[in-house]
């Protein structure tokens, strides 16, 4: 019986678990591939056992995988490859064409020679969980944006309300002062400049009253402030 046949028999119970599992020799040869992985990847055990993992899935040749798998082959602690950092460690398409999102744990399994270790990969499909959490996060994010917008609208309406009254008084008084003032009067240009600024302030309050979106822009020292132009309709 060949090594692969012996291992297929020894680990045959793993064909009945709903988790993708495969066994890797320390030279990166795949020596066992369970039925769940056959179903997920569409690759039969007979077609992949005996092949090099790095040839079949080249990302495993990266240092970030090799250094951690090396520890497992040395009999060290398990290695975890999380879904958020690794996505689909063994690309396996779903009926909708998207890839299964996977969380993988790799443990050392002593070989029969008593010297070496195999690396046993357990690949969990966490697609449903990831999608649900992503949907919850997006809903929460939308809710936060909505709450922020409501806060901004309430604040800007209050600011406009409080500003409009003194603005109207200042505007009215400057109109009265300018009523009979000759253009060569020393205060004339100051008063007209003041009125221009009052008009600008009036435009800003109008924009504040028309805020419908929450948009920010960079300010000083890494801070962000509301972008009034982009936020108002």
């Amino acid at each position, binding site marked *: 019986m060949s090594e692969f046949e012996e291992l297929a028999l020894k680990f045959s119970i793993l064909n009945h678990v709903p988790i993708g599992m495969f066994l890797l020799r320390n030279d990166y040869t795949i020596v066992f591939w369970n039925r769940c992985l056959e179903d997920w990847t569409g690759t039969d055990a007979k077609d992949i056992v005996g092949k090099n993992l790095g040839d079949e899935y080249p990302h495993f040749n*990266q*240092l*970030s995988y090799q*250094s*951690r798998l090396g*520890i497992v082959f040395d*009999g*060290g*602690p*398990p*290695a*975890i*490859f*999380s*879904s*958020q*950092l690794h996505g689909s460690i063994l690309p396996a398409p779903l009926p909708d064409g998207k890839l299964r999102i996977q*969380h993988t*744990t790799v*443990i050392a399994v002593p070989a029969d020679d008593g010297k070496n270790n195999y690396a046993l990969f357990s690949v969990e499909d*966490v697609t449903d*969980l*990831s999608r649900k*959490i992503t949907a*919850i*996060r997006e809903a*929460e*994010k939308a809710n*936060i944006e909505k709450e922020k917008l409501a806060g901004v609208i309430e604040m800007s309406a209050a600011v406009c309300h409080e500003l409009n009254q003194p603005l109207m008084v200042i505007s009215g008084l400057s109109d009265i002062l300018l009523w009979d003032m000759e253009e060569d009067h020393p205060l004339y240009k100051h008063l007209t400049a003041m009125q221009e600024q009052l008009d600008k302030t009036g435009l800003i309050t109008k924009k504040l009253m028309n805020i419908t979106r929450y948009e920010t822009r960079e300010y000083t020292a890494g801070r962000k402030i509301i972008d009034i132009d982009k936020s108002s309709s």
Partner: protein
Amino acid sequence: MNITPSERQLDALTELINIGVGRGASVLNTMLESHIVLQVPFLRVISYNDLKDEITRHGGEWLATVEMSFRGNFTGSSQLIFSTESASKLVAAMVGEEPINMDMDEIRGGTLCEVGNIVLNGVMGSISNMLKFDFSYSVPNFLEENADNLFAPDQKKTEMSILLARTSFQIERLNIDGDVILFFEVASLKILLDSIDTLL
């Protein structure tokens, strides 16, 4: 019976754990877009009864922890503990998420479990390699728990020696503190310290 390590033993242990978290950082840096630096500013032996106060001193009552048990030359467990808020910030910074919506969920928990796995593997690898120990390990698990429950009175743990190594994660503009905790049976700490003596 309490065992108090000498200053030299503590220095050597701190160095050993610094080497371990340094290895963890170099692995993390091969995986992440953000550069991360890990340091252990101090290490202490404390009692289980003081552990909760020490851990919660710099953070909230809710804690995110990754635990990995080991057995071999001696038995115990290693844990990496953060306040939930720090854990969420760390995960967000590592995966390039906006630091909003900071709840820990199963997905972020899985990411933290991987980070903890890498750091704890570095520490345990450093101890086992330098001191020629053989350990077998359990699969690390992630737990989010209230400090009162996590450090509830436990006769077995009260009798254990606890090594607490404060670990500083510097990533981008963030500086996040976590704690690496090693629980040992008292006899195990003696074995560890005796082995340290052979190195000195």
